Structures are given as C-alpha cells and as structure tokens.
C-alpha cells in the first residue's frame, strides 16, 4: 500500500471513529494531487474505507478544498470589513494587475490562482494576504509587486 494509505491509517488511529479522519485525509490527498481530482477522491475513499461520493460530499462544503485545478501557488486576499477598511480592494486590484487575471482565475501558465477570502483572523494587522496558506500582514497596494516577483522567482 502507498505511503498515503499508511498515513491515513495512522490518522484514523487517533480517533474513536474512522470518519473523523476524513478532513485530514482530504487535506493530505489535496497536498499530494494538487487538488481533489477524481483520482484523489478515489484514493482518499480507499484509505478511509468509504466511497468517493462521501469524500466529495464533505470536501464540497469547505473552502480550503479544491475540487477543480488551482495554480501551483494560491494567493488569497481577505476582503472582509477590517481589511476592506484599510484598502484590501486596492490590494486585490494590485494583484489582478500584476498577475493579469481577475480574482477567481488562474494565470495562463498555471502558476498562480488569485481569489478573495473571508476573514482570516488577522484584522488588526490588515490587509492580510495568505500566500500558499502563510499570512502576510500589513500588505499595502505598493507592496504587491514585490510579492508577485517573489512568487515568480520561487521564493
């Protein structure tokens, strides 16, 4: 069996019920496959001992699971109230200009997906931008160019 399968078995052992391993298993499958493709869901279901349909029904509820392909990098700009008050929309538009795409889209080379996201829990350090799930705080529109260059240079 695969390393993925073994890892899911270890996770299952942490809980009184195998089902609790569903979210962690989906996360692992997504890390392995890039997104939750039909193959990823099948592998996940096999490791959990359930059906791909169950896995998809759970995955479709949560924002962090991608049921469609996303870029190699994920840029998420919080546009909730606290970030919006200090200019999150301008930050978002800065990313749209630099990347040449609209929010919700992926660059033509498949490198970067840009999207807005709801409150990331860093309101006092706005604007918060999550780059591949790592927070950047106090992002200003004039700081966007450097972030995008960093992504393109593989930092």
């Amino acid at each position, binding site marked *: 069996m695969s390393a993925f399968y073994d890892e899911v078995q270890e996770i299952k052992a942490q809980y009184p019920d195998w089902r609790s391993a569903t*979210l962690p298993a989906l996360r692992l499958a997504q890390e392995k496959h890039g997104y939750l493709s039909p193959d990823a869901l099948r592998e996940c279901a096999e490791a959990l001992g359930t059906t791909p349909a169950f896995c998809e029904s*759970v995955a479709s509820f*949560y924002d*962090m699971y991608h049921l469609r392909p996303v870029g190699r990098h994920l840029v998420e700009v919080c546009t909730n*109230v606290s970030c919006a008050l200090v200019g999150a929309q301008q930050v978002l538009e800065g990313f749209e200009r630099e990347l040449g795409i*609209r929010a919700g889209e992926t660059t033509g080379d498949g490198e970067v997906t840009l*999207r807005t996201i709801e*409150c990331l829990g860093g309101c006092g350090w*706005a604007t918060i931008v*999550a780059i591949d799930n790592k927070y950047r705080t106090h992002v200003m529109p004039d700081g966007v160019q450097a972030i995008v260059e960093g992504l393109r240079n593989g930092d």
Partner: protein
Amino acid sequence: MATEVREIVMADAGERDLTKLAEYEAIGGYQALQKARGMTPAAIIDELNASELRGRGGAFFPTGRKWSFVPKPDQNPNPHYLVVNADESEPGSFKDNEIMARVPHRFLEGCLITAHAVDSQNVFIYIRGEYTGPYEVLVGALEELHARADLRGDVTIVLHRGAGAYICGEETALLESLEGKRGQPRTKPPFPAVQGLYASPTVVNNVETMATVPPIITMGGAEYAQLGVPDSRGTRLVSLSGHVANGGNYEIENGVSLRDMIYDLGGGVPGGRQLKAVIPGGSSTSILRYDEIDVGYDFNSLLKLDTAMGSAGVIVLDDRCCMVQLGIRVNEFYEHESCGKCTPCREGTRWMTQILRRLEAGDAEQHELDLLLDVCDRINGKCLCPLGETAAIAVASYVEKFREEFQTHIDEGGCPFGDSSPLHDVLAPVAQHTHHPTATVPA
C-alpha cells in the same frame, strides 16, 4: 477604571518566549496543573464558579456551570470529551490566533486542567484550517508535552484542523465537522454536555477560556473575581481593528471604557478623521454610533445598548464609511458562510444582499427599506443556529442607527459616499463565485 493593559492570559509573553516549555516552566508554568490534580473535579468546578469566569468564545456562558452539566462517569459510561473551539473566524476577532501563537503552553495547561475537571482523557483541539502559524506553534508545544509524562498524565491531545468554514465555530457544527462530516449545526437539545462528540458527554470551550483557567487555579477564583465588574469578571483580550492607529490585541480588565480603549490603547482614528461608528464584538454584534461609546466594555453595559461583547472584536469606522456598503459587505459574509441547512438563513441572507445592493445603486423604492427589515425579522429565531440571525440583527442595527443615511440613498437615488468610502465595491468571495467562476487551468 484605568485604561491600561492588564495581562493575565498574556502575562510574561512580552518578556519571554513562552512557546518554549522551559521558559514557561521558569515562570511557574504547569504548577496550576499540579495543584489542580491534587484537587477533586468538584473542587475545581467550585473554584471556576467562584471566579465567575464566563466563556470567551462569544456566548458568555458561565464556564464552571457548563462543566457541571457533564454527567459523572457513573451516570454515563461513554468516554467524556473535551473539545476546544479554536475555529476563530468572527470578522474582527483575532485574539485566539495570538494566544495560541504566543502562550501555547498556558493554553494547553488549561486544557489539561479542564480535562481533569470533567473526567476526560481525550482532548480535541479544532483549529481553523487557515491558522498555519498557530498550528505549527501548537505542534511544537505538544511535542514538548508528549515527552513529559508527568505533565500530560493519561490525557491525549489531538490537533484537528478545519478546512475553511465559519459555521464550524458554532459548537454543534464543529462537532459534526470533527466527526468528519459537512459542518452543519445540530438541533439542541440534546446539548453537547449530554450528547456531543460521538454522542458522548462533551465540553466545548474557547481557546481564551482555556488559557484563563491556569491563572484562576493559581490565584484562586475569589481573587480572579476581584477583577472586572459584576457579571463580567476578569480580563478579556480585545481585538482592535479598522480605523484605529494601533490595531492589535489588548488584554484589559472587563468594564473599561470603550472610548478609552479606542483612543488610549488604539491611538484613536488616524488621518485626522472623525469617528462614525464602532462594531463592538465582531461583525455579528449590533453597531454603536460615535456618540454611544462612553460605555463600559462589559456584558451588562453593552446589553443596555442592545449589543454585546461577542468575541471581543472591536471594529472602528471613520466618517468616510457608507453604512449601506457596510451592510452589503457584512451580509455577503453571512450569505457566503450560511451552511444551507435552514431556509430562512440560506435564502434570507441572499435576499438581504439583493435589497441592500438596490439601495446602494439607488434603485430601491421606499417600501424596500421596510422589506429589508421584514426579511431580517423572518430570519430571527427561525433557524437552528444564530448565523442568519446575527446577520439580520447586525444589518437591522445599521438601519436603526443610521436610518437617515439609508433614506438618503432612496431620496437621492444613489449613494452619497460613492467611492470615497473604503467599503465601496469591495469584492466578496460570494460575489466572486457569481461573477468570476473559477477558470480552467491550462494543462
């Protein structure tokens, strides 16, 4: 009451790196746990009752009383669970983020004391999926703890990561999610204390509540209750954001003036602008006008103004902000996060956005303002959980407190603020899905 920082939960975190077990032990860390293990569960609950600690997640339920609802082991043979709600997602709140990142051991010590108090050997910490930073700190702290049998005893602590859903901060939705399902709230009763995780007795507590437990055991409940004001004892981590010079978390004694918090600790409204409004406890709470902030930041004082401390996220808005735009952005959040189970919330939040957008565009007729409030009314009290209700209450409060501004949108056929308001045309995720569906990635 003086407006100064009073650190109980965050004590010593400014001077030392308390993410390290050795540093935490050097300031007396985990001694409260040793003391608590020498006490009976009933004695610990008595101490919590004496402290008058109320839950810091937002509902403000007395912590000791919550623990006392858990059946004793001889009354219910199922295992008892402690589930920690670290799914902090309320717009405006970011305190648990900082607690987990800077005082992880105080938080974990609180979990271990609580586990002892409710006869539990299994602790699950449900941390929101986006909190990568705090998660990594907790992983490190747990590794240190696992190497110390004298501290962890017979308790296992499992870190469980969420995957992006505000609703999972609601305790029964959190339990569903922890059981590996879609995070949709359950009917109550039965309450989690009786039938929670895997239908077993379960206590669900917030991160800040847990991190407050060790200091209470150390100083004694009676002394902790000396802090703060009646019905709101002790300290609170307040998250300041929006139009304040110094945004951030500040631990204060309950009852300090909201105005002093904003102007003394937060440094006031930047850019020489005027204060317009304050959202006092995260976006789910009713708004206060600029002339209503001479109020104590405590449960009773805010209740008199029909609002609440909620999860202590104070959002400050200056005079450029349009209240209709605020309504749109706040409501779009709830529309996006509605789990879809109850019709009034799922449909009502969408209708509210539509009416608010018509108001903002100047297309709304006079009766639509009442229609908006009517939709709010038809959500209130008609759902399993408070998500839709909080959207309705928040938006209705903007109309109530700034009715003349909503009326101007109708009378003038448009927004008097337009793009001079920072909330103008902000792209929310719910609108992004509608207008810019995810593009296909080239192979």
